[in-house]
């Protein structure tokens, strides 16, 4: 029911204005970094370093031309999409299976195994660098997308396992029992009954895995040496060296990198948000 602003009492008007001011502030905080990056991509290096929040003096595309010339950003973008999508699918698929077993099945050493798998959550990346480098090299997966996919799937394992086990535990057992009574087998119960019920947890795990893999830098640097498997975060290092820099091109590259993600999120935001909220009320 719409109520005109004029019909509101003084207290209600204050609350109304306060609400919109707060929402405006939140929007500003969320949008400012993106607007700042896009604005900086049109400024010269001197303008960026002298006055970070000033408007660009012109809308020259030079930064974008330089970004595409200096680094193979489009190639890296394509690699990032392939690696991140496969990592996310594998991570969610396999860890959903593992999490379901941890949540429902009783077997000797279950807690110990779960504890060991979760322990890797607290191992710092730098401690993993050398062993992972050696293993990937030995497997002949150095400088391949597959090498990165495996590493990212493994790195994101503990977090996804944590989320998905909690999700499966929160689903009532009665649903499975009803499925078994109706003649469904273990696989059918898992894929057709439990997976749809765990949509919220699956989405959360997928979003986290996607973001972690999309932004990952260190392993992408260490485990690749050519252009065929390198990912987007590496391309941003092309624009600064110890004694030289091109911030205009760097911000143009950042813009090229983030705009597609923003567009994709804008298109699918309803699905993402609804699946997240659906998960939050289930169980």
């Amino acid at each position, binding site marked *: 029911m719409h109520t005109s602003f004029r019909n509101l009492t003084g207290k209600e008007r204050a609350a109304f204005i306060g609400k919109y001011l707060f929402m405006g502030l939140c929007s500003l905080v969320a949008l400012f970094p993106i607007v700042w990056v896009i604005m900086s991509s049109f400024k010269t290096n001197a303008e960026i370093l002298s006055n970070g929040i000033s408007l660009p003096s012109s809308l020259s595309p030079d930064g974008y031309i330089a970004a595409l010339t200096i*680094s193979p950003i489009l190639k890296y973008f394509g690699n990032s999409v392939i690696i991140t999508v496969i990592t996310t699918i594998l991570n969610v698929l396999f860890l959903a299976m593992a999490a379901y077993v941890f949540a429902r099945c009783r077997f000797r050493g279950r807690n110990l195994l779960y504890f060991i798998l979760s322990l890797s959550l607290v191992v710092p990346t730098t401690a993993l660098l050398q062993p992972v480098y050696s293993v990937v090299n030995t497997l002949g997966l150095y*400088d391949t997308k597959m090498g990165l996919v495996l590493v990212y799937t493994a790195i994101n394992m503990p977090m996804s396992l944590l989320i998905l086990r909690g999700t499966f535990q929160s689903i009532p057992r009665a649903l499975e029992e009803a499925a078994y009574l109706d003649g469904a087998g273990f696989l059918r119960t898992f894929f057709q009954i439990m997976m749809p019920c765990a949509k919220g947890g699956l989405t959360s795990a997928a979003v986290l895995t996607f973001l972690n893999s999309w932004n990952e830098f260190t392993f992408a640097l260490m485990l690749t040496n050519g252009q065929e498997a390198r990912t987007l975060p590496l391309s941003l290092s092309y*624009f600064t060296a110890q004694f*030289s820099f091109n911030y205009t*091109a760097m911000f143009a590259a950042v813009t090229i990198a983030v705009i597609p993600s923003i567009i994709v999120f804008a298109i699918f935001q309803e699905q993402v948000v609804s699946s997240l909220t659906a998960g939050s009320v289930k169980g």
Partner: protein
Amino acid sequence: MKKRLFAFALLAAMLVGLLSGCGAKKAETPAAEDGVVVINYPTFQCGVNTAAPVVDQLISEFNETYAGKYQIVKEDVPGDANYVDKIKVQLGTGDLPPVIYGAGYNLLDLVIAKDLAVDLTPYVEADPEWKALYSDASLATNSRDGKIYASSVEGSQVGYFYNKELFAQAGIEAPATTWDELFQQCETLKAAGITPMALDTADSAWITQLWWGAMVATASEDGLAFMQTMNPRDYNTPELISTAEKIQKMLQEYTTLDAIGGKYENAANNFLSGQAAMIANGPWMIGDFSDTTKTTADFAEKVGVAIYPDGFVYDAPIQGYIVTKQDDPKLEEAAIEMVKFFTSAHAQQLGLEMQGMVPASPSVEITDYAKEQYPLLAEFLDKASEATVSTDNMQATMFSNLLDVISQELPRLYSGELDAAGFCQAMTDAAAKN
């Protein structure tokens, strides 16, 4: 049910296909099939790095010269720190690329510590042309225990640049010849409303440590000896403490506020935008003076160059290319050929003419073309030749963990949380961890 099973099977097949595609080994290069030795060469000299065009040109010339025998495949490792990190990980696994560029990061000692560096002495001794390019300074930089382990292409001659217009505004006629005069000039500039110096503290505080090292080297003979020591451990000496006091004064009184926590870029911008009158840096910065995305079109005309007071200039070859031990002797031979080519008189001259890089060897001629292209460089080299004291810079000789420590402690020195003695103690404590 059958339909679903079929769909599931298709999905599984697609996934397997996708994964096998991702993991597929790249096709062997035709060169490798023809028995050509391929040298995979990782380098940070790519992207916006000023030496990138020179390296690309050298690779192209090498591949042409050794066509059918050797081939260099360049691997971009953008970002100096990323390169060092990657080499350190590879050092840990013993899986180093055939050629490493030591640069200013003292990678040589790390490689030698793992016994992975090839002794180049017999190869240098056998080639009079190559041997002639090694000056005493170059031998000192690239040798350990009398054995040559690396070969330099570039020299690091560093003085400071000043803004002639700002100097004139403050009534200063010429760069200072003594440290007292330099500090007097800082006072004069400050009184005229001009920030005297562009400094930094982040990323190992390159610019600030150049001023510190110059003061240490000219403070006394002990100071000079300290600067000439590789990996010094004791920073608790009278000359280091007294000069750290002067650095504290510079940070507190003679620089911009963004110097504290600021990186090289911030300091460079302060000088390039005319906000600071002096900046210590090497000739590689000369190109920036005429880059209109960084400064005004006429800025290059306003810049003068000088050596430090008391006749000091940083003058030392930059640690050069290192050949690492490989299982395949042919690859090792190819790597040695590559290093010889990359540090030849021709390569040093190419760097000079293309990017104004100072040659590592004094025997390499500074051509008229280079002088015309880089008049400020020619002026600097003339002045540098008159210097009476010279040594390498602090960053090149200090333990690598101190590069972070200096960045952490300088802001505390600025704020007064640490006094000069405390700052030097922190450096000594960090050096003791090695």
